């Protein structure tokens, strides 16, 4: 029988939630790495027992942990993230040049073909790759050096490379996103990159349609249709039908199109989930109601999903890496909140229930569907 493993990164440790394929009864294991910020942990699709976790703190910096037994035990691996060459400068908040400085790993993305190969998206924005199970890391410098790097600026949360998407149909193609630079694509395995932000409009930057400078919050893809991308920008929900070459807005009837998470149904490439957040000044759900919005038409037409979610006095946020789906026949959807709840739906969003209510603030949620 299938089972599901939910990997939860929080501000004070990691937790692993397990259930069988019915997804009714859950066990909560953890905290792992108690007291540390766990920005992200994710498992390999090739070897589901191989997990990578980003562990960090303001005191002791960055640690990368690896498990080879599905999270039962962990061992620290390499934590040296050295920018290639002389890293130069990006723009600081006030527009002045600021040296590139490594701060932390925001996102771990295991290879789709090799459990020992994993990518790390880091702050200050850069993409690193390990081909030895995390022991050593090498920057894919073509991204940072492709030309627009000196124009990149940090978003409010830092200048972070937070999204890494590998194209399952093309081993050479990869997408990344940076706050607040935008989205980028490589078609040659990471050697060269280009900005893919045409169609994004951000009123808060000097040139609203600039090539770079957009605060992209997250990007999602359905593996069966890798040229179609969905984006939650700072404001605006966007869609691309040509691998990011151009984007158009699909915010439609959302109550607010500010938000962080976006994800796609495991079996329906036109079914998309977002969690609207009130505004960039008020990072919580509008009207005190926690609602997931689902579009079954690839955007524009959205329905509120609220059964089982708090509908009064709720003021949580859902961060960019804190939503994921399983691939069971009836797609499960999972998300975690800044208030420490992890909610799940075993019927593609129609009904929700909390898997656990009182964790530290949730930074990330990933799901493994195990056979």
């Amino acid at each position, binding site marked *: 029988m299938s089972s599901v493993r939910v990997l939860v990164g929080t501000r004070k440790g990691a937790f692993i939630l397990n259930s069988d394929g019915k997804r009714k009864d859950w066990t909560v294991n953890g905290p792992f790495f*108690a007291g540390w910020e766990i920005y992200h942990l994710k498992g390999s699709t090739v070897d589901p027992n191989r997990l990578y976790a980003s562990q960090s703190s303001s*005191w*002791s*910096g960055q*640690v990368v942990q690896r498990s080879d037994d599905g999270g039962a035990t962990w061992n620290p691996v390499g*934590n*040296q993230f050295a920018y290639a060459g002389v890293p130069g400068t990006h723009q600081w908040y006030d527009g002045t040049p600021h040296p590139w400085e490594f701060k932390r790993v925001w996102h771990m993305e295991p290879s789709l073909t090799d459990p020992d190969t994993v990518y790390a998206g880091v702050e200050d924005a850069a993409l690193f790759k390990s081909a030895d199970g995390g022991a050593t890391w090498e920057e894919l410098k073509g991204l940072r050096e492709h030309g627009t790097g000196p124009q990149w600026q940090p978003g409010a949360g830092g200048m972070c490379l937070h999204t890494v998407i590998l194209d399952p149909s093309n081993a050479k193609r990869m997408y990344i996103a940076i706050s607040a630079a935008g989205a980028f694509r490589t078609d040659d395995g990471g050697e060269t990159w280009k900005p893919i932000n045409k169609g994004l409009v951000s009123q808060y930057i000097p040139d609203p349609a600039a090539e770079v400078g957009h605060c992209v919050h997250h990007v999602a893809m359905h593996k069966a249709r890798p040229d179609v991308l969905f984006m939650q920008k700072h404001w605006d929900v966007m869609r691309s039908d040509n691998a990011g070459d151009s984007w158009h807005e699909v915010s439609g009837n959302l109550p607010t199109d500010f938000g962080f998470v976006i994800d796609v149904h495991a079996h329906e490439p036109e079914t998309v989930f977002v969690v609207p957040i009130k505004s960039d000044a008020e990072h919580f759900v509008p009207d005190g109601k926690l609602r997931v919005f689902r579009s079954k038409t690839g955007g524009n037409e959205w329905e509120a999903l609220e059964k089982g979610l708090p509908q009064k006095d709720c003021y949580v946020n859902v961060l960019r890496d804190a939503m994921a789906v399983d691939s069971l026949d009836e797609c499960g959807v999972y998300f975690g909140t800044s208030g420490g709840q992890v909610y799940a739906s075993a019927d593609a969003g129609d009904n929700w229930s909390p898997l656990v209510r009182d964790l530290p603030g949730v930074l990330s949620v990933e799901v493994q569907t195990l056979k």
Partner: protein
Amino acid sequence: MTNGGEGASSAMVRVMLPQHLRTLAKMEGAEVSLEVASPVTARRVLDALEARYPMLAGTIREHGTGKRRAFMRIFACEEDWSHQSPDAVLPETVASGKEPLLILGAISGG
């Protein structure tokens, strides 16, 4: 204050680490004893510590520059040695193992 360790080839130095780093290094007990070449300095103690526990590299000192991380502090004999040169010779009581060298996380954050 007398500085110690001159003339001896090595010394056993006790080091006390914050809980987070002890957990990361999978240490049992609150402190570790390290053989450190004389004269005993903070740099040599940390070199010996990272040689024994490679996972601590980068957590007390930055990779590359070797600078003490901003929120990590070093105390010897109830004195803050954080701003001393890493090559300053540590007090005899630390070099001889009578007192531990304390590595602390600064009291900050939430």
